[in-house]
């Protein structure tokens, strides 16, 4: 019964959204990863800073460089192509950026991120970056479709390739951040134990691993679908 439902959903989806093949997924993830690498490279070579020496500026660099990449790329795969133009999807993504940042900042502060004037820019930049990894792709693709949001984030039940490409990296980033907070209370007295440095390391590690996993999933599903189709 479940399978039937899924197939039905797939059929519906095919009508409204561009399907993604494995190579495309891989390419998108590769570009996102490269964006991160460019951000770090630029931080090192143009500003001669890194995450430890100036976390705030580095984080800002990351989100500024990632922002156009993520929004422009994911807006291509928007739902309801008939009703929703490319520009509208981009606009949705841009709107989703601050909203997602708010949600992420709330989560981080509730889990114990320090509050204070000193930490404010770091927290803002960090949550904008998190927003790009988690919320923005979904806003660009789904808009305000509650059912899709719920399916991806509450049930973690991706069906199509694009679902995988949104769901898995977002969860990877969140789980990475959660584990990245672990070394913070230890008394090693290292500079990277400060908020949000090691959390950011966790986010990036989780995001990269999840992107690889997501490419793998899309590839697997693609082949299995083809087999089924035959």
């Amino acid at each position, binding site marked *: 019964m479940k399978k039937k439902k899924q197939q039905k959903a797939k059929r519906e989806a095919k009508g409204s959204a561009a399907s993604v093949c494995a190579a495309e997924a891989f390419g998108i993830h590769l570009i996102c990863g490269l964006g991160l690498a460019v951000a770090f490279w630029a931080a090192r070579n143009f500003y001669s800073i890194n995450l430890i020496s100036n976390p705030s500026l580095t984080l800002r660099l990351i989100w500024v460089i990632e922002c156009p990449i993520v929004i422009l790329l994911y807006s291509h795969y928007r739902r309801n192509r008939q009703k929703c133009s490319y520009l509208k999807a981009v606009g949705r993504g841009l709107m989703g950026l601050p909203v997602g940042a708010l949600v992420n900042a709330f*989560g981080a*502060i*509730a*889990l*114990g991120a320090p*509050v*204070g004037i000193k930490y404010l820019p770091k927290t803002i930049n960090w949550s904008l970056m998190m927003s790009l990894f988690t919320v923005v792709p979904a806003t660009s693709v789904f808009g305000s479709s*509650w*059912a899709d949001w*719920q399916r991806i*984030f*509450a*049930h973690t039940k991706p069906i199509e390739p694009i679902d995988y490409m949104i769901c898995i990296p977002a969860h990877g980033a969140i789980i990475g951040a*959660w584990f990245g*907070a672990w070394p*913070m*209370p*230890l*008394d*090693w007295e290292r500079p990277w134990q400060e908020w949000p440095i090691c959390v950011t390391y966790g986010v990036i590690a989780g995001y990269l691993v999840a992107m690889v996993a997501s490419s793998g999933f899309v590839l697997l599903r693609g082949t299995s679908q083809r087999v089924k189709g035959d």
Partner: protein
Amino acid sequence: MPFTGQGNQSSLVYFLLIRSLLVLLALQMVGLSIFVFGFFPVKPALSGVSGPESYRSPTSPSNQNQSEKDLSSNQRRSLYQELSGIPPSFDRLILMVIDGLPAEFVLGKDGKPPCKTLMEAMPYTQSLLSTGMAVGYHAKAAPPTVTMPRLKAMVSGAIGGFLDVAFNFNTQALLDDNLLDQFFKIGWKMVMLGDETWLKLFPGLFLRHDGVSSFFVKDTVQVDQNVSRHLPNELIKHDWDLLILHYLGLDHVGHIGGRNSLLMAPKLKEMDDVVKMIHTSSILNQANNNGHTLLVVVSDHGMTENGNHGGSSYEETDSLALFIGLKSDVSDYLLSKDHTVFQVDIAPTLALLFGVPIPKNNVGVLISRTFWHLTDDQQLRALELNSWQLLRLLEAQLPGLSCGSSPYDGLIYEQGSRISKCNGSLEKVFCCLYMHAAFLHSSWMSKEVSRSTYREEYSAVVAAYHEFLRTASEWLSRRASDRPVNLLAFGIAAMLLSTLLLLGLIFFICKEVYVGEKQNPSDLKKTSWWHLDEAFCVGVILILVLSMGSSSMVEEEQYLWHFFSCTLNFLFMRKAIQSVQGGRAGKNFSLLKEKNRTGFQIGSIFMLLISGRVMRGWHQGGVNWTNLPDISKWLEQAGSDHVKSIQLFSGLLVIILSLASLFIVGSNTKFVLVVGFSSLMSGLLVILHLIKHQDSMFAPSSYSATLLVQTIYALVGTVTLGTSVALPWFTTSWIYNASSNSIFHISTSNPNELRHKSLLLELRSALFVIGWTYIVSWCLLQLVLQQPINSMPILLLLVQVLASMIYSFYSGLHHKQWVEVAAIYYLGIAGHFALGNSNSLATIDVAGAFIGISSHSTVLSGVLMFMITYASPMLVILSMVMYISVKDSSHLSFSLNLESGQILLRMLGFPCLVPLGLNSILLTAYTFILLLMRNHLFVWSVFSPKYLYVCASTICVYTGVFVVAATTIYTHLVLLLQKRMRISAHAANHKHF
């Protein structure tokens, strides 16, 4: 009927379960106490102070009972001199303590001199040593190698156990017999310069003092200058007999840069200069016939390569004992290679050198080379006195030991005969060794003439005494730190067994409940899966157990609990969002209700998250980052007015919130009104107390304040007890009149079902009011007891508890019950740390333990201290009564034929068993960790205090769960009885008609 048979069987199972649970808990308690007493041995210490009787043999009956208390200090001094037969060798003592100096730095290691830079750093001391003017020893210290216990060991000669340290945290003064008190008794005047630990240990003993704090470890210069600046003046003065100098700088140098720090050599040079200054001035004094001065340079402990200390490695225990200014020729000291003594040996040595009785609990042996300026019989007398003192201590520890009446008395030693070996039981060995030495001594004494020809015999006496002293001392000091392996193994095995069986019990109930619940097959698929929150609950425990092996995680445990309980809340939120689905599509009533319900769930989770975060920020907590800013520090800086207004605000809000929750949710019948009103009264009294008397908490509390607090205690106690006892009897009368907006309204109109449900309904509504009373009473008590700054966290705790109740009410059957109970329990522990508690004994609020107590009572203060420390876990466990009542138990009425006992089991099973199970997992795991870490550097400073906390929280969980279970069972029994009475009355009425 198959059902009745099943019912009987299940009630049998039910009683069996309760009985096995009790047995398991008893087993756990036994295992725990065995382990605790095996791991932290409490050695019996002799009370009292050594007096003139210490100069009499312990084997001879004490005949003199003169009242020695009214002796003046001068009389006492001459009495001691007369009795001891050893003239005091020195008039004045300068005790110079260099904190953390390893003896290796001065004396070298393994017979080799220290390295060149160190030799050059202390030229004067090294020249004293090489010319025989000074005698130095490696004085082996006993763990824990931290300052205060080591100072105690030096002045009392006793090795304290860990529990001595732990249980004396409210009185730091050294109450045992010690050198300084002995000196004080013979009229010595004492001056102390340096570490203020001495002032804490000996309050009011010093003529002059200048204490420095060792709080700022980064300061290596000022701490020592503050000591040395007085030195020139003090050395000129003649009004003191004992001068204590305690230099902290070297320890600070070690903490900053380790043994090889660049600052080390200059610091040693500074110390060397101090030695030089003192020594030249004492030579000057001696030349002016101002008496002999003995300079003793000691260190309390050594340090590791990194400059830390606390553990039991050679580097840390290698402390120094350096005697400068001895009168004897010590040329052969240079020849011998073995310069190792024990730190406790300093106490008897100094006592005998200065002519005071050896402290009662001393386990040390005199250092014989420091007595070589005395005549032979004086030296033997010193050995004899030391032996008598140790023999007395042995008699206290081994009740079977009494040498006076032993058969050895009759043994006749032949001339020159020697006992090559003493065999037999411990008592016999000690007795034999002692008698042997005493016999040789007396036979040597009897040869009055030409003693000098009996050189060989003299050394035989000395050897015999030393053998006894060493054996006794080693046994006594081992006893203070020895751990019986068998006991530990048995204790751990018992705890492990009980934990495993307890978990088995929980699993069994889990199966029982959920198998009974699975009515439709679609549920089966759902429950066969582990949900994320369930897996996380179990994972939390695993991660915690693993992280407890790291000392910094133990120190900063508060982060972990907050992190976990918050994450769990986020997972709950995710789960709540999952169920929103239908809300959008449907517009009919039930779906609207569903949406409403999710809204309540999410709202309460937001409350939990926000209040949890504020509480996390209230106290920084922990050990390493305590000085970082937090809300409590900020408020305290802002002034006491702000604190007070916040306190009043929280007090009022607690009252308003609790009354609102009672009258909105519960029904407003007469009895509930009475309960609410009396709670309001006690609340107002608490507010009155806060307004009037909170400022004078640290001043000696006035009579009226104490009376007011006692009234509050009495009122709160009466309300709580009265409600829990009387309420069940009144429940039936008002349950039928209950308004329909109550959460306990009956959803069905079927009268047949109604009758079945009524008992359950009564039980739930009675438990709600009782649980409410428990929570409110506990919060009000905490408002009185806790520090003023903690009143806001108490309010937030109440908010959290109520929010969890709302969440549990609306969550229905989405969760397994044990997950919710575990989440509430985690919340309680996170709250425990939010109230400013940590895993170090320093954060226990001792001041609060005397609020409202008119006379000193250890038991009452202990109970209050326990209540203050475990405010949050206890509140959470008490709230389980309310949890039972708000939890939707409609699934229980699926099977109408359930035994009433079984219903009780299902309602009570998880709220009681889950805290017990979680706690016993933590307890057992932590016991293992403590055993593994027994040789760890921080075993005394980090792991052992944490273990005491774990034990105390076990007691807290037991008490709380007992209260919950007793309340529920009692209420149920009363309601059952009333129902029977009603039925029989009904039947009688029928008959009558």
